[in-house]
Every structure is written in structure tokens, then in C-alpha cells.
């Protein structure tokens, strides 16, 4: 405990010294992140393989590549982001200058998650560094190889007087949360997020919470068979392709019209086979379940006999290997846990509706998800989905790709989160935008001051309307 106090005290001193504020320091740290992931690419692949059975292609695509892209983007833009932004000031205040100047919050805390243990720690770190903060990263203990990697390797590349990794579990997190932070960035579940925000409230610490939700994929009727194939292929990629369903923006369940259910299941099976072979367990291209806890959690979702009955593909489990076969369920009961909790695993329920438009009400009767996916060519339906549902994001005719667009804010709403990041939003989420207004001593606006009289009242009324002509006339009318 005392050690933690000392550590944090030093970080605060480091921030106060102004060390992290210079453009040079920030750029150096960003370059160091790039060097780190370049030098240690194989070590990272190994760690992700160990923690999650992730194939290097997934690891690169979802973790290393993301971090590299973010760091490069930040490096190219940071000078622009740091610059004060001029804002127009009404003529009334002439001569005046108004601007908004971003400044770092100070000492910030980043909670990593276990499913993308490298990128969910380093991508926010890039934002925090760009914004000029001192940082503590608390990686998830459920991904131990990656956590150790971060704890051991980061200090070798980054300025460890300003950037620290603290390992531990729930206890250490609790201890960290007792301290006063200038900002907390959390990725994880709503339950823990609520605890984090409650702790933050004690110190009025602003938070960004990246949560999840049951992200639905709406599959409309697609007249072209090749479009249908592409759509279903993408659905398979969006379910099992990213950490085997253990992703906040992964597809949780699919909504489709009853008449297409057989076609859908057929094509799903076809692509599962194409991607993962007859025996996905041996494919090497699919991540495993993170640990026994989550394995049991998922297993329990299937225990309900009505749920088990609805399995139309897959369903086999291997606890030793923490393996669950890509599983498709058709219309499990809506009151079962599997349709009320975020699945976060390789189980894909298909929910059929009579008319695809019913998807909108279905989604709206549930908490707002982080992402909604809709495969449709119907422009009216697209507009309806956009106008009548609410989610962190909406992607039409594809999955997951919105994650890679730096110009799009990445974050949730309602139960799926608070705040956003990626691209410039990462810089913003770790910055306080300070208003700065400069005025001159002359001219003086006499009507500002008492004693009050009718002239002053008239003047100020006109001023509030920015009625400069009126003001001029008023002043000319006055004969001294």
C-alpha cells in the first residue's frame, strides 16, 4: 500500500515538473511504442497465443496493427491537436481573442481488458500520452502472459518515471481506485464499470467507460445470392473471427426473417467449415475461451434444456482445452440467460421474425448495445434503423470495420458506455479543453458598470441582441 502511495506520489511529481507536456516528450513516447511493438512482435504473438490461443493474423489485425496505426496517426497529428483552437468572439467585445487550449488532465488510470489485452491497454495509452498525461496501466490479470509482458517490457521502452504498469487483481484495482486520479479509462463489463464510476465519484474524476452489450446483426432479405453469401461470410467473421466471440463489438445474435432461417444456417455452416475445417479445435485459426470461469459461464448458458434443444449446429465442449465449438442456436427462449446477458463467446442465437422491420422494436426493448450491424440494401430501412434505434455505432453491410476508422468515435451509449476514443477522440478523451479569453484595457464599455440608469439598460439590451446599429444610434442620440 505504502509502495503504491510512493509510486503515485512520484508520478504526480513527474507530471507537475512539466516533463510530459512537451511535444518532444510525447513524440518520443509514441515512437517508443512503435519500436516496442516492432521489436517484440514475436513475443506479443507468443503471449497472445498463450493467453487466448490467438493466431498471429488475428493478433496483428486486432492488436499490434491497431496500436501501430494509432501511434502513427497520433504522431502525424499531434502538433495540430495540441494547438489552441481559435474561436470567434462577438464584435461587442472588440478587441478580444477567444480560444480553446487542450491541456492534459494530469495522472490518469487505464484499466485494460483480457480479450484484447495488448491493444486495449496500448491504444488508450497512446491517447493519454498524446494529451501529455502521466499514466498508470492496470492490465487484466485474466490475461497473465500479456500482463507480464506489459509490466516487463514497457519500462524498457517508455519513460517509466511517467508511465507505469501495475499488476494485480480485484484487490489491487480496489486499492488503485481509492486514490485520486485525474481521469479513469475503463474497458470491461457494466458491473465493474459501475464500481469504477462510483469510486471515481468520490474524487469527481471524469471517466470513459468502454463496455459492450448484445450487439445484434440484422439480416434483411438480399435478392442477390452472392450478396447473401458475402453477408453471411461477414457474420461468421464478425462472430467467431474476433477472439472467438469474446469481443465487445462482436456479433452477439442475429435477427432474420423466418423464411430465410434455413438458408442462413446452411451458409453459416458452410463458412464455418471453410474457415475452420471439419474440426475447428484443430484449425489454429480460432481463439480459445479465456479461462475456466468464462468456460463455465458459457457452458451454463447452454444448460437450460430449452436452450440446448435449440442448438442446430455445434454444441460440443472440451473443458481441458477451454474449447467450445462454434455453435448456432435457433430461437432459444427469449427469457433464457443467453438472450439476456452479453454472450461473449462462440454461441450464436438466431432469432426469427415475421417481418424484418420487427428487429427495431426487438433491439429497442433491450439495453443500448455498443454496435448494431445491418445487412440490407433497403435505404428506407437503413434510415429507420438509424433514426429509431440507439447504439454506440451502426455499421451497414459489414462487421467490426468501424473499429479501424480513425475518424469515427468509438464508444457506447447507455449500458454500452460513456465517452469515446480512437483517432483524435483519444487525444480529446484525455484532455481538458480550457477556454482562454483575452481582452484589452481599452475601450471600456461604460454601461457595464453601475449606477444603473435607463441609458445603460437600453445599451445592454441592444448589446445582448448584438444590435450594433442600434447601439450606434443610441450613442449618437445622446447629446452630452
Amino acid at each position, binding site marked *: 500500500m505504502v509502495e503504491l502511495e510512493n509510486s503515485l506520489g512520484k508520478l504526480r511529481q513527474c507530471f507537475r515538473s512539466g516533463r510530459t507536456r512537451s511535444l518532444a516528450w510525447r513524440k518520443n513516447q509514441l515512437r517508443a511504442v512503435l519500436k516496442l511493438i516492432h521489436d517484440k512482435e514475436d513475443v506479443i504473438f507468443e503471449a497472445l497465443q498463450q493467453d487466448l490461443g490467438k493466431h498471429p493474423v488475428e493478433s496483428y*489485425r486486432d492488436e499490434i496493427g491497431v496500436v501501430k496505426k494509432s501511434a502513427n496517426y497520433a504522431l502525424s497529428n499531434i502538433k495540430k491537436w495540441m494547438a489552441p483552437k481559435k474561436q470567434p468572439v462577438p464584435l461587442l467585445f472588440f478587441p478580444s481573442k477567444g480560444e480553446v487550449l487542450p491541456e492534459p488532465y494530469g495522472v490518469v488510470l487505464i484499466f485494460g481488458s483480457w480479450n484484447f489485452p495488448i491493444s486495449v491497454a496500448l491504444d488508450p495509452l497512446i491517447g493519454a500520452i498524446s494529451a501529455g498525461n502521466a499514466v498508470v496501466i492496470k492490465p487484466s490479470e485474466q490475461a497473465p502472459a500479456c500482463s507480464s509482458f506489459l509490466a516487463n517490457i514497457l519500462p524498457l521502452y517508455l519513460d517509466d518515471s511517467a508511465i507505469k504498469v501495475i499488476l494485480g487483481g480485484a484487490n489491487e484495482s480496489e486499492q488503485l481506485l481509492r486514490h485520486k486520479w485525474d481521469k479513469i479509462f475503463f474497458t470491461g463489463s*457494466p458491473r465493474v464499470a459501475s464500481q469504477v464510476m462510483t469510486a471515481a465519484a468520490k474524487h469527481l474524476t471524469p471517466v470513459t467507460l468502454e463496455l459492450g452489450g448484445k450487439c445484434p446483426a440484422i439480416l434483411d432479405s438480399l435478392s442477390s445470392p452472392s450478396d447473401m453469401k458475402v453477408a453471411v*461470410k461477414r457474420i461468421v467473421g464478425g462472430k467467431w473471427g474476433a477472439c472467438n466471440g469474446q469481443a465487445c463489438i462482436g456479433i452477439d445474435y442475429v435477427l432474420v426473417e423466418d423464411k430465410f432461417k434455413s438458408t442462413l444456417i446452411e451458409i453459416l455452416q458452410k463458412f464455418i467449415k471453410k474457415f475452420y475445417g471439419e474440426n475447428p479445435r484443430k484449425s489454429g485459426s480460432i481463439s480459445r475461451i479465456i479461462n475456466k470461469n468464462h468456460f463455465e459461464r458459457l457452458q451454463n448458458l447452454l444448460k437450460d434444456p430449452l436452450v440446448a434443444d435449440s442448438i442446430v449446429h455445434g454444441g460440443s465442449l472440451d473443458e481441458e482445452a477451454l474449447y467450445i465449438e462454434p455453435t448456432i442456436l435457433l430461437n432459444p427462449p427469449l427469457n433464457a440467460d443467453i438472450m439476456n446477458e452479453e454472450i461473449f463467446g462462440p454461441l450464436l442465437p438466431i432469432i426469427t421474425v415475421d417481418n424484418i422491420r420487427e428487429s427495431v422494436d426487438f433491439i429497442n426493448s433491450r439495453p443500448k448495445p455498443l454496435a448494431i450491424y445491418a445487412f440490407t440494401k433497403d435505404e428506407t430501412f437503413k434510415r429507420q434503423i438509424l433514426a429509431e434505434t440507439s447504439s454506440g455505432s451502426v455499421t451497414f453491410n459489414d462487421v467490426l470495420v468501424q473499429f479501424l476508422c480513425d475518424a469515427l468515435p468509438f464508444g457506447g451509449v447507455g449500458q454500452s458506455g460513456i465517452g469515446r476514443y480512437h483517432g483524435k477522440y483519444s487525444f480529446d478523451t484525455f484532455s481538458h479543453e480550457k477556454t482562454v479569453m483575452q481582452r484589452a484595457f481599452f475601450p471600456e464599455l461604460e454601461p457595464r458598470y453601475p449606477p*444603473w440608469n435607463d441609458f445603460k439598460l437600453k445599451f445592454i439590451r441592444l448589446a445582448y441582441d448584438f444590435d450594433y446599429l442600434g447601439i450606434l444610434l443610441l450613442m449618437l442620440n445622446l447629446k452630452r
Partner: protein
Amino acid sequence: MGSVEKETKVFDSEAASSMVKELRDEFLSGKTRSYEWRVTQLKNIIKMCEDHEQDIIKALHSDLAKPELESSLYEISISKNACALAIKKLKHWMKPEKVKTSLISFPSSAEIVSEPLGVVLVISPWNYPFLLSIDPIVGAIAAGNAVVLKPSEIAPATSSLLIKLVGEYLDNSLIRVVEGAVAETSALLEQKWDKIFYTGNGRVGRIVMAAAAKHLTPVLLELGGKCPAVVDSGINLKVAARRIIAGKWGCNNGQTCVAVDHILTTKDVALKLVDALKHELEGFYGKNQLESKDLSRIVNSNHFARLTKLLDEDKVSGKIVHGGERDKANLKIAPTILLDVPQDSLIMNEEIFGPLLPILTVEKVENSFDVINSGTKPLAAYLFTDNKKLKEQFVMAVSAGGLAINDTIMHAAVDTLPFGGVQESGMGAYHGKFSFDAFSHKKAVLYRSFAGDAPVRYPPYTNGKLTLMKALLSGSFFGVIYALIGLSKN
């Protein structure tokens, strides 16, 4: 058309819950989505202000003895302006913002769509009870939300008036006012809101955020702090004094979140500044400042007692160089200046929020910045100087919600500048478009086509795919070509 909610029975958790449910159902009907609905409400607020200007002035006078000019201008005009700006710009604010996409998602198009959060709660304070109720709800309505307003019970005349006027002028199926104190506020805070906007103090701000945390409700907290004004030497002290007075006693007699709390200056300037302040104060408020009608009174006996306690502390009672008179019956305290108060006095350890202005002296004017930074971050900080370098130092070194140089409080009147605090002084910002944004969810939307499907995305994973993936993610066009050629060779 709407009936006034006469709160004859207790507004408890159950009542709050059913009210939120009603509002949510009405919100989900889609009524607030329309531009017309929003503009109608905003126009009605303007009409409400114009029709009832005298009633509002009377209520503010009852609650705070607020001078008519302050009420008319600082509360009513600003409220109307906020509506007028929103009406003027709403079409533009509501438009989706197109954004650039990159090679990674080619072909695609993307935009950011603003959508309302849903049902929001606005809790307003007693010092600008009209403005700080209307200004936030303008943002909430412009962004298409349903709103519940909980005005402060410490300004009861304004609170009652608001409930009457909102009942008459605005759409009660979506906009409500709930009167009450701690019990009613607690009942409201137990509910699940889509956003909570609170203006007030840090103690209650923490309670609001903790309540919001249970439902993962985002919050915007406008708090306060000890807003310092640093005064350099070699400047026009007369103008500086006037602007300090305007930003202290001229705003609700110091009971304003961005009012000048205290002054930091060097010894030689301090004495001259005191003289300038005395001179200008007399010019503004006459010789008998305690009786001036151009100054608000202290809001209630609690705050009166709090402020007199600050004055009567042994450490500071001998430091009064101007004023100090009080009238308990009328809850008045004269504009009071104290010189050289010790940093460990009560008056220097809480937000004063009243007509007492301590002046602290430092060796060199630059030392003020350290003094400011040793405390919690205030909502605003001010500097009076002609020295360019000092200005630059100030802007870099002092962290506050907002800074103004050579003036006070004006930055709050410019709606292109975000108004909000940092750390202890709050989180989030509003005014102008920032109000609209504060009550909106910015939804990311990506449009893709069925063409342009990189096989590299899908398993089974191979080394060739890894190379191509790297090239794609780095945005390297030639890297992509090269890898594709390599891939097809395989």
C-alpha cells in the same frame, strides 16, 4: 396545454419512477425527434420570458433581492439568447457530420449522427435560479430529449414560477418541473436517467455522480471553486478595479460560480488596488453600500451565518480594509475587502460565494501561479497584466475551467467558448453548440458495400495473409499491391 403539477402528495421514489416511465414512453414515440417540435418549444421559452419578464424579475427579487438590471440581463436576456441561437443553428447542428474513411475500409462512407440521449434530469442552483434552469434545458430540448427540471428550493419564488410557466408554455408530456428539497431530489436521483446535468457544489456533485454510477448515467457537473484574480503592476488599476467589481459584487453580490473569489498581487500593487477598488465601489454603489439597491442580498440566513463566520474569525477580523458592515434582518453584507489574510484562514479554505474579497500578497507576481496550483482547480482564473510573457506563463501554468485575461466573467458570455470546469470545478461543458452536444449521443455510422471484400480478413490464416494484413493496416498502397501479388503467387 398542460396542467400544473400541484405537489400535494409527497414526491417519492415511486412517483419519480412512474414519471420517468411516462416520459420515456413519450420519448420513444419519436415526438422530440422532429425539428418542428424542438423549435416550437424554444420559441415558447422566448415567449414565456417576454410575456412574464416582470414576474421573473419579481421572483428573483423575492429570492435574492436581485437588482432589476441583473435579472433582466443576466438571467432573462441570456436565456432568450440561448434559445435564439439554438433556433438559428438547429438545422445545422442536427445534420450528420460526414467524415473521411481510409484505405482500410475502402469502399465505404461514414458519418456521425447526433441523436438525443433520451430522458434527462437538470438540477439547478439558487444563485441564477432562472438562467441556470433554462440554459441547460435549452440544450436538452435542442438535442431532442425529454427533460425533468428540479429547481433549487433555496430560491422558492423562482421555483414556483418555473413550475407554473413551464406548465403553461411547454409540452408537459415531455418537459416537467419537480419542486422540492432533499427528499424529492433523492427520489429523482434513484431513477435511471440518460444524462444528469447538475449545477451546484462539489459535495452534492459527488452524490449526484455516485447515484448516476449505479445506472451508468453520464453526468455534466458545473461546480465552482475559488476563482482567483492575479493583478500585475504597471497596469490601468482603475479599469482593472472596475472589472473586478463587475465580476464580484456586480454578479449577484459575489454569489456566482465564476465570481472573483480572491485577489493575488504584490504588496505595492495591493495598497493601490485597495484604493482603486474603494473609489470605484463608491462610484457604483454610493457611500452607504450596505443599503445599495444595486446589490443582491445574501440568499438566506444559513449563508449569512456562514459568511459572517468567515469574517469574524480571529485571524482575519483585523484585516478588513473596507466594508464589513452587516444587516442581519435584511440579510445584507456590505462589499468587504480584506488585506493580507493568512492562507490557513477559513476564508481562504472554502469558496467564499459572497461579498467578501480577500487580497493576498506575494513576493513576485509569478508566485501567484504556484499559490493557485496548490489549491484545487477552480472554474475560472483571471489575470490583469500588460506583460505578454506573464500572460503566456499564466495560460500554460494555471489549470482552470476557463481563463480570462484583463477581464472577469466575460468568457462565460461568449457562446463559441465551452463553459465548464475541471477536477473539483466540474466535468463537461456547455453554452452554444456545446449545450447541444452535451445532451447528444454522437453515433458513428459506417456504410459499406458488398463488394471489396479482402479475403485476408478471413480464416484459415496464413503467412501470406499476415503480410497483406500488415500492408493494409499501414495504409500503404504499394505494400498492398506487393502483398496481393505475393498472395496470388501462392
